[in-house]
């Protein structure tokens, strides 16, 4: 036990090292002081030793009180955990104590990995697991020598690495917090989440930075179960409040936005009515919607709902609204939506005026740009294209956390000066630019995308998916969506675990916009490339060294971003296009068994080799003697065999005597010297070549 405790200490220190560096200095001090108590011997077991432990614990509590804002902040809990683990090491004596400690060390390393994700961290993790293996061997073995322990642990880890790789690649991944899975399978949403007063969609005004605030909340908004494949995440727009009015800073809803009578009057209650409004519609999607109680009426239907569901209506802005307030019940609706559409019958003069309104004396530069665009281009599509080009080529960056200083001419400052910010600036500026160019535009808030629960058709939408986008009016086509975000920050490649892309013709306008978007992206890419290459020049050394930094960088990306989609891609690469998680699991298990049996076969061969060479050579000798006319019978012992050789083939006696003597010595005389076996085999070879 006494030698193994040092290995345990090594494991602990190694596991806690990144946390020591990150956390306040007193964590390391208290931890190491607690650890020193282990060396205090019998002193530790007396009352003063225990008192010292208590004092250190109290110091840790005090440190947490002074260093952290909350008792339950992540780092506070981690600090406490580390100090307790090291104090425990200080008093550990039994095998069970040490086992507990090394397991705690691994958890510690894992928790440390939550805060950084890099390849360096992976190496650290490998080192911790190696130390764990070493400690396990040391704990369970009396008097193991360090070199022996290191070699054994190294062998275990090295043999384990291929298995790890196999499991890593093939184990079916279930993304997302585990409680989401319970949610998907029928637990009521509100049982899992507290109601939050500040529901993003319920707010009557969209303020700068509002989406960022909403995104910080990690509460669930709705769960949708799709029939059939889940569409691409980037195409899921969950429609919330629609804003027409901009006062220069905030987008606001009219005062009577929540008036039930007005809503009912303007609402679309029948499918026929809706069909009249929808000019084009495509990609129907059926799903079951469950919305978390939010205190308002928003049901966040998928854009655009094809028909109202019971107990609900569709407003004139095409939002799905509940007739009752969603206070403490969880609406569950069977819905049909069209992902591709353009809608709108006609725009009344007052609506047109609202959709073109420009607050007096604000954002002059944006207004001027819009007017310039309107002068250069006639067609709304061309203007949209022009705006996309500007966004793509203008060096805009999407930074949700960046807040543009509130005040006058906010959008001007965003669009022309800072060029970075959250989605509300981007959408707001786009909408206002459209208005300046004479195209009626409005802002829609809601959610985009969601989390697909792997292996299922469930999508969970959280506050973090909050989004805002623009809709513009074109006469004869109605409202259609303009997504500025995809130009600035292209959406992740459109892949979905369960989806087979549907080959359906899309409405002309959408297709046009998409192509324009892609076309607009290219110049930006071209412009960026030289920048990326700039720090690359290296002195040429005759033979080029591989660029380790880039190799590690891409490996790091690959490892850290490995996900179910990549998993499927990999399988396709292997030649299994239609695979599901069961295939993955079966493949993984088969692979693991294969590798294990390979190890077994190698070990078996290695253990047999030393023994069987002697037997094999002896059998060769016996065969040759049989050819010479003296066949050894099964029951004949070597000495009798030799006696028979002496009688029947006296000329072979001297050679046979030597061989049989060696054989008896090796097999029965207890001579395990490998040199003797080698000599024996050489003698037989010589015999075989002579006769």
């Amino acid at each position: 036990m006494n030698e193994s405790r040092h290995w345990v200490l090594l494991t602990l220190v190694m596991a806690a090292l990144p946390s020591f560096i990150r956390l306040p200095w007193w964590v390391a001090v208290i931890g190491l002081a607690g650890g020193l108590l282990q060396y205090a011997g019998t002193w530790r077991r007396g009352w003063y030793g225990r008192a010292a432990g208590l004092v250190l614990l109290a110091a840790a509590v005090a440190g947490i009180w002074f260093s952290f804002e909350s008792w339950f902040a992540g780092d506070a809990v981690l600090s406490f955990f580390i100090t307790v683990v090291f104090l425990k090491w200080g008093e550990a004596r039994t095998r069970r104590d040490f086992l507990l400690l090394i397991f705690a060390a691994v958890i510690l390393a894992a928790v440390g990995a939550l805060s950084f994700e890099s390849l360096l961290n992976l190496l650290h993790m490998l080192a911790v697991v190696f130390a764990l293996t070493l400690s396990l061997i040391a704990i369970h073995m009396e008097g193991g020598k360090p070199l022996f322990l290191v070699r054994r642990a190294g062998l275990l880890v090295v043999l384990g690495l291929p298995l790890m790789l196999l499991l890593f690649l093939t184990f079916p991944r279930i993304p997302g917090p585990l409680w989401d899975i319970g949610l998907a399978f029928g637990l009521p949403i509100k049982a899992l989440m507290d109601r939050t007063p500040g529901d993003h969609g319920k707010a009557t005004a969209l303020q700068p930075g509002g989406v960022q605030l909403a995104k910080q909340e990690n509460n669930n908004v709705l769960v949708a179960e799709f029939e059939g494949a889940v569409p691409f995440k980037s195409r899921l727009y969950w429609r919330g409040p629609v804003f027409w009015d901009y006062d220069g800073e905030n987008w606001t809803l009219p005062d009577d936005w929540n008036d039930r009578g007005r809503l009912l009057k303007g609402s679309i209650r029948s499918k026929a009515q809706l069909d009249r409004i929808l000019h084009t519609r495509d990609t129907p999607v059926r799903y079951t919607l469950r919305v978390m109680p939010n205190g308002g009426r928003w049901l966040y239907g998928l854009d655009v709902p094809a028909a109202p569901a019971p107990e609900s209506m569709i407003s004139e802005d095409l939002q799905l609204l509940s007739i009752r307030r969603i206070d403490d019940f969880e609406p569950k609706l069977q819905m049909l939506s069209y992902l591709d559409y353009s809608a709108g019958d006609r725009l009344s003069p007052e609506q047109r005026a609202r959709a073109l309104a420009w607050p007096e004396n604000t954002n002059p530069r944006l207004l001027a740009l819009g007017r310039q665009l309107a002068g250069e281009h006639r067609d709304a599509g061309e203007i949209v294209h022009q705006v996309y080009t500007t966004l793509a080529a203008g060096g805009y960056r999407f930074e949700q956390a960046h807040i543009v200083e509130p005040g006058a001419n906010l959008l001007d400052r965003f669009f022309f000066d800072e060029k970075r910010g959250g989605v509300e600036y981007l959408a707001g500026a786009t909408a206002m630019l459209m208005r300046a160019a004479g195209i009626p535009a409005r802002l829609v808030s809601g959610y985009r995308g969601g989390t697909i629960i792997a292996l299922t058709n469930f999508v969970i939408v959280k506050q973090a998916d909050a989004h805002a986008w623009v809709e513009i009016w074109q006469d004869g086509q109605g409202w259609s969506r303009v997504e500025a975000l995809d130009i600035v920050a292209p959406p992740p490649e459109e892949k979905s675990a369960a989806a087979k892309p549907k080959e359906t013709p899309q409405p002309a306008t959408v297709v046009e916009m998409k192509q324009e978007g892609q076309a607009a992206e290219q110049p930006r890419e071209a412009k960026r490339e030289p920048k990326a290459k700039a720090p690359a020049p290296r002195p040429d050394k005759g033979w080029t060294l591989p660029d380790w930094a880039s190799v590690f960088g891409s490996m790091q990306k690959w490892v850290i971003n490995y996900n179910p989609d990549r998993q499927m891609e990999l399988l396709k690469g292997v030649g299994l296009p239609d695979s599901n998680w069961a295939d993955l699991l079966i493949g993984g298990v088969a692979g693991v068994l294969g590798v294990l049996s390979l190890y077994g076969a190698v070990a078996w061969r290695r253990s047999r080799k030393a023994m069987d060479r002697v037997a094999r050579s002896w059998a060769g000798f016996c065969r040759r003697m049989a050819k010479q006319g003296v066949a050894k019978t099964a029951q004949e012992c070597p000495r009798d065999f030799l006696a028979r050789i002496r009688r029947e083939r006296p000329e072979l006696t001297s050679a046979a005597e030597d061989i049989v003597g060696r054989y008896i010595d090796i097999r029965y005389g207890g001579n395990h010297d490998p040199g003797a076996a080698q000599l024996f085999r050489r003698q037989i070879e010589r015999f075989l070549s002579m006769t």
Partner: protein
Amino acid sequence: MSADSVSMRSLLQMQLRWPLKGRRLRLRLAPAGWGFLGLIACGFLLSINFSNNLIFAMTFLLVAIALVGWWFTRANVAGLIAADWRVEPVFAGQQAVCRLEVENRGGQDRYGVRVGARGLPPAGEARLAANGRAELALRRPAPARGRLPHLAATIRSAFPLGLFEARLPVGDLPAILVYPAPRGEQPLPELQANRNAHQWREAGSYTDMRRYAPGDPLSRISWKALARFDELYTKEFDGAQGQAALWLRWSDVRAAGVEDTLSQLCRWVLDAHRQGREYGLELPGTVLPPAAEEQHLRRCLETLALYGTEEREGA
């Protein structure tokens, strides 16, 4: 040819014998293994919950190491060959030491090998060198006189990780005779027997001549016979009268219960034997006539150990 077939046949027999006799190597999770399993479960929960690939990698590495460790543990015990158990009778309150010689015919060293049986304290671990053999000992407490029953025993090892324990069944622990604990303050009863001990080893009048057997004292060898027949002969005599033989009687013991009486008798038997005297044992229902050999001592002790147990078993 023949050697090949022989080795093949023995190999086949070795392979076949395992499952047929229920002597298969089994692995089970050791307590540390359950802890490790918990650790892996924690790792999975963490990695799935935070969708963190690093923790996934770590968890899979832990799984992989456990699997490789499983294999190593298995290989560490597989193919060991055990001889039969050897054990000496003990007195109640002592520990019987059961010894088993184990041979490692493989080319790899085996570590942390020990023998174990259900309910017995763990034995010390031994290392078996490649192609070597070692004697493993298992201590079995013997709290009361009588016969300790057979007990299934296994060769065990948790090397290297201690997560799994491999168990290779070997022959059962033999039944162990437990003599009563020698206790009691009464001195040996004197001169109760009607006859004196006969000491065959002492000289007396010449009776016979027989062939020499190893161990016979040199002074008894008939040198005349050697000169004549060129072979060794030993002269035999009728022995001498030694000290008086003792009768160790149940009725002479002043003790409260059966066990105390047996303990006192056991004490007497040992004392008398140490003094080299001839003694007889008289228990209710059993009488062993006086004698003085080692074998007699064992018979006496066995009678004491099993006194009353047959009837109990019968009832």
